[in-house]
C-alpha cells in the first residue's frame, strides 16, 4: 500500500477522498489530532495567542492533513476553536462526510461549549459524527461513558483518546468511518422515502 496519496495522479481513477472535519473547543486537541494522523506535512495556521488559553499558539484558519486508510484517501480539516471563528466552521464543514468533535476530558467546564459547536454544525449540515474525549493520559479525566451521558448520546458514538498518539487517533478515525459507512447505507435507504429524510439546510443562511 502506498501511504502517500497523490490527488493529481489518482484523479478520476481511485476512490474519491473522504472529507472529514475535526471541531471542538480551544485546547481539545484538534491540531494534535490532525498532526498525529497526517501522512503529509500538515498545513497549519498557528498564531500567538493573546488570551490566556493555557497554551502559546492557537489555530486561526485551519489545519489540513491527509492520510490513506485501507486504500481510502482521507482529507482531514481541523477548525479553530473560538466562537469568533464560527464562519470557518461553516466554510470547512461544507461537503464534509464525517465529523470528529473533540472535547478535553479534564475540562468539564467546556462541555457546554462543545455541545454548542456540535449543534451549530449539525443544524447546518446532516453529517455523521463521533465525540472524542481527549487527554486520557491525565489522572483526573472524564470517561467516554460519562461524556456520552452528558451529551445524551449512545456510548458507541463517544470514544476516549489521546490525540497526541497516532495509534489512539487512528482508532478514533476507524470508529468514525464505521459510522459513516452505516450512515451512508441508511441515507440511501431513507432517501427513497421523502417523508423520513431530514431536510439538509444550505449554508450561507445566517
Amino acid at each position, binding site marked *: 500500500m502506498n501511504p502517500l496519496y497523490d490527488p493529481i495522479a489518482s484523479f478520476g481513477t481511485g476512490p474519491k477522498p473522504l472529507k472529514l472535519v475535526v471541531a471542538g473547543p480551544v485546547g481539545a486537541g484538534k491540531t494534535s489530532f490532525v498532526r498525529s494522523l497526517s501522512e503529509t506535512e500538515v*498545513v*497549519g*495556521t498557528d*498564531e*500567538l*495567542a*493573546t*488570551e490566556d488559553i493555557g497554551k502559546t499558539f*492557537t489555530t*486561526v*484558519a*485551519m489545519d489540513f492533513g491527509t492520510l490513506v486508510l485501507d486504500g481510502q484517501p482521507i482529507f482531514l480539516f481541523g477548525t*479553530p476553536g*473560538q466562537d*469568533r*471563528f464560527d*464562519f*470557518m466552521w461553516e466554510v470547512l464543514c461544507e461537503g464534509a462526510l464525517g465529523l470528529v468533535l473533540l472535547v478535553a476530558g479534564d475540562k468539564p467546564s467546556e462541555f457546554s461549549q462543545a455541545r454548542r459547536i456540535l449543534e451549530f454544525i449539525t443544524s447546518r449540515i446532516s453529517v455523521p459524527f463521533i465525540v472524542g474525549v481527549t487527554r486520557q493520559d491525565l489522572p483526573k479525566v472524564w470517561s467516554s461513558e460519562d461524556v456520552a451521558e452528558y451529551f445524551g448520546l449512545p456510548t458507541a458514538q463517544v470514544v476516549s483518546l489521546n490525540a497526541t498518539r497516532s495509534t489512539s487517533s487512528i482508532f478514533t478515525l476507524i470508529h468514525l468511518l464505521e459510522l459513516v459507512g452505516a450512515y451512508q447505507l441508511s441515507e440511501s435507504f431513507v432517501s427513497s422515502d421523502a417523508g423520513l429524510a431530514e431536510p439538509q439546510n444550505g449554508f450561507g443562511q445566517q
Partner: protein
Amino acid sequence: MSKQETLYQAINQLRASIPELRGAIVASSDGLAIAHSLSNGEDPNRVAAMAATALGLGKRISESLNAGSLTETSVSGTNAQIYLYAAGQKGVLAIVAPAGANIGLIHMEARETAKAVASIL
C-alpha cells in the same frame, strides 16, 4: 498616552488622510479586535476574526510558495476592496476601500500605519 489611544490615533489619522475609506481595524493575530473605526456598523469582533484568518492563511501560503514572510493580502469584491496588512508578528491592520479608490495612496499610507501599529503592539 495609552497604547489604545496611540492605536486610535494611528487609524484615525489613516482615515483622515484617505476620507473615502469605509473602515479600518487593528486586530491581534489571533483575531481579537483592538481598535476599530468601521463606518457601516459591521461587527468589529467578527471583522477582526476574519482578518486574522485571512492573514494567517496568507502567511502559510506565502511560506509554502517561498514568497517570504507575508506583508499584505487582499480581498476584492465588486463594491469594495479589503486590504490586510501584517503589523509585526502580533497584529493585523485591515482597511475597507470602495471600488475605484486610489490604491497607490492607500498602500502608501496604510503600510506606514501598519508599521506604526507594529511598533505600538
